[in-house]
């Protein structure tokens, strides 16, 4: 199943996701930075406390240079639940003192000055080692070598963690509030931004087969992003309307053309039944009806041919077509029309100049040639000549010219001869048996192959029809 997608939903999702990523990044950076700063501050505090512990180391009163730790002035722990602990080492005397709560069995190996973390019974501690601290107590007239001290001081990290957490919560809450505000703002913005689209849709919904007008809402026309849409909508509507009008005209003409023979047929049969007739009259009536039916049948055939030709006009080039010789199809068409030509004492002269190859369906081309030849023969005077010439312009299209020496086409009819059902003079063409579809079929087929067809009155006398078929890719 296809899920419907919402532009609004996508934009909101994009905004929310990017904002959430931003908030997460901010939270992480904030927490990281706060923690770093707090730990650094704690480290400084640890150093200060180590110094104050160092200040409690004194020399003994004798001149031995031994040291002792005066534990009466040990600074109080900041957090009574998790008291600090420390140890003091002297350079020569070794371990001088340890706070009473020094974890049993824990030994800190000697090393350079630094800070590190330590967990004791689920309580995190920060430990600091400070070395080369001189003993502050100095005796007058000292003759022994002074000792340096190394102090390890540890304090719980709990407060730092609590403060870091508080900072994190603050940043997170602030980000959430900002995120909510952004979503609301962007919702408003998107809704306003999509308004022209809705107006456009409302207007487009009013377009129908009766009303092709699409008044473009000003907002839609002023919106840059909608321009391509509105432009193509207008163009599409124009095309649709044109083809719709054409289709309707065709339907009207087809109805007219079909109704007339049906009316004739119906009236013949009704008048036959109107009163008793003798068998001769019945026979004549049935004969007439049959002729009318045949005419109707021919008309239907022509209409189907036209429909097929126009259908192919959209798909001809997509079919798999073989290379065929245009000249050969012309020769064949001339052969097929010869019967009609002879009955009217008309001769056909075909001038060719070798093969002209084109990817095409030979049936299509023959249909074109037959229609043009039939017209030429029908409008030629008794005993006239129809000239057909197949030529190929250098590198250009194939050119097939049909020339008769008949009555020609009335100038006012020239622009319309390729229209469906167009008959310059209905009585004349009806007498010659045409339906006004032959040229329309020829045009549809020629255009299916990307070609052009034109009709003109020859300067001398008669009509000249020129077909040009592009050969690109065929030779």
């Amino acid at each position, binding site marked *: 199943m296809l899920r419907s997608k919402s532009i609004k939903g996508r934009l909101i999702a994009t905004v929310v996701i990017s904002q959430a990523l931003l908030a997460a990044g901010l939270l992480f950076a904030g927490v990281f930075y706060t923690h770093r700063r707090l730990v650094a501050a704690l480290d400084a505090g640890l150093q200060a406390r180590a110094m104050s512990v160092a200040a409690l180391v004194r020399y003994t009163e004798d001149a031995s240079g031994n040291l002792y730790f005066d534990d009466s002035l040990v600074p109080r722990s900041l957090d009574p639940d998790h008291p600090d602990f420390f140890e003091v080492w002297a350079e020569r005397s070794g371990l001088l003192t340890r706070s009473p709560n020094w974890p049993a069995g824990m030994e800190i190996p000697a090393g350079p000055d630094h800070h590190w973390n330590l967990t004791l019974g689920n309580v995190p501690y920060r430990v600091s080692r400070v070395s080369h601290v001189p003993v502050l107590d100095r005796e007058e007239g000292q003759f022994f070598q002074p000792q340096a001290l190394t102090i390890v001081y540890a304090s719980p990290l709990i407060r730092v963690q609590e403060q870091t957490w508080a900072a994190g919560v603050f940043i997170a809450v602030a980000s959430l509030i900002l995120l909510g505000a952004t979503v609301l703002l962007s919702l408003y913005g998107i809704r306003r931004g999509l308004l022209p689209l809705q107006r456009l849709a409302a207007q487009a919904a009013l377009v129908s087969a009766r009303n092709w007008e699409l008044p473009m809402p000003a907002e839609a026309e002023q919106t840059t992003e909608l321009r391509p849409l509105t432009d193509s909508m207008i163009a599409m509507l124009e095309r649709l309307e044109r083809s719709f009008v054409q289709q309707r005209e065709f339907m009207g003409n087809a109805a007219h053309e079909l109704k*007339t023979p049906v*009316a*004739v047929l119906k009236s013949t049969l009704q008048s036959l039944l109107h009163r008793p007739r003798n068998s001769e009259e019945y026979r004549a009536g049935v004969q007439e009806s049959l002729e009318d039916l045949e005419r109707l049948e021919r008309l239907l055939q022509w209409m189907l041919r036209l429909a097929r030709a126009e259908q192919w006009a959209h798909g001809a080039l997509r079919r798999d077509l073989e290379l065929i010789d245009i000249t050969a199809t012309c020769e064949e068409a001339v052969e097929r029309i010869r019967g009609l030509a002879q009955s009217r004492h008309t001769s056909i002269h075909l001038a060719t100049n070798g093969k002209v190859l084109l990817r095409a369906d030979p049936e299509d081309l023959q249909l074109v040639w037959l229609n043009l030849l039939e017209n030429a023969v029908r409008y030629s005077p008794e005993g006239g000549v129809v000239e057909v010439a197949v030529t190929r312009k250098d590198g250009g299209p194939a050119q097939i010219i049909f020339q008769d020496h008949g009555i020609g086409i009335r100038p006012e009819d020239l622009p319309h001869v390729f229209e469906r059902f167009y008959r310059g003079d209905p009585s004349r063409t009806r007498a010659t048996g045409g339906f006004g579809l032959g040229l329309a079929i020829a045009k549809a087929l020629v255009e299916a192959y990307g070609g052009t067809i034109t009709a003109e009155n020859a300067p001398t006398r008669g009509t000249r029809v020129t077909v040009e078929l592009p050969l690109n890719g065929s030779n």
Partner: protein
Amino acid sequence: MRVLIVEDEPRLAENIARSLRESAGYAVDVATDGQEGSFLAESNTYDVVLLDLMLPEMDGMQILTRIRQAGQHTPVLVLTARDEKESIVDLLNAGADDYLTKPFDLGELLARTKALIRRGKGQPSPVVTIGDLQLNTANRTVQRAGRTILLTAMEYRVLEYLAHRPGAVVSKTELLEHLYDYNWEKFSNVIEVYISGLRRKLDDGSDRQLIHTVRGQGYILQD
């Protein structure tokens, strides 16, 4: 009655003409192009014109306009293959009295033609009554004082024409023009024969004469 058919499909025109002649006894002229149709319509007086729209030379609409511009009141029945509302509205506005779309029923065409002729002569009912004479144009029967009178086809046509113009003087030429097609002139002597035949049959057993002769002018049908 005399009818003009303007229709370019010769077989259809012929079928309509035949059925009008056979079942209504009308005189029928046929024109197969617009020029001829227009010429006939303007140079003769018809009781109804059946007009096709798509015609060579001059289309039906033009003929209709010309007939009406010439001030002719002849009823016009248009035969059309198109049934779009617009064109029908245009037709009626241009002066057509009725229309039929192709393919139509010959019976309906006949009935409409008769109705148009009646109305064109101010006779809304198919049964015309003059005194004790009753003429039914639908089934072509004539009764006088309840007694059915059998008439020949031509006698009936003469009586029908007179009955459609009761109380008016109808000249012999008018009768000829409306009862025969374009070559009526060669029938000029037969009217007296039909009138006397009619008088004999109608007035049989009655003391009142219905068809009167107006000397030098023509005939008049009245009680």
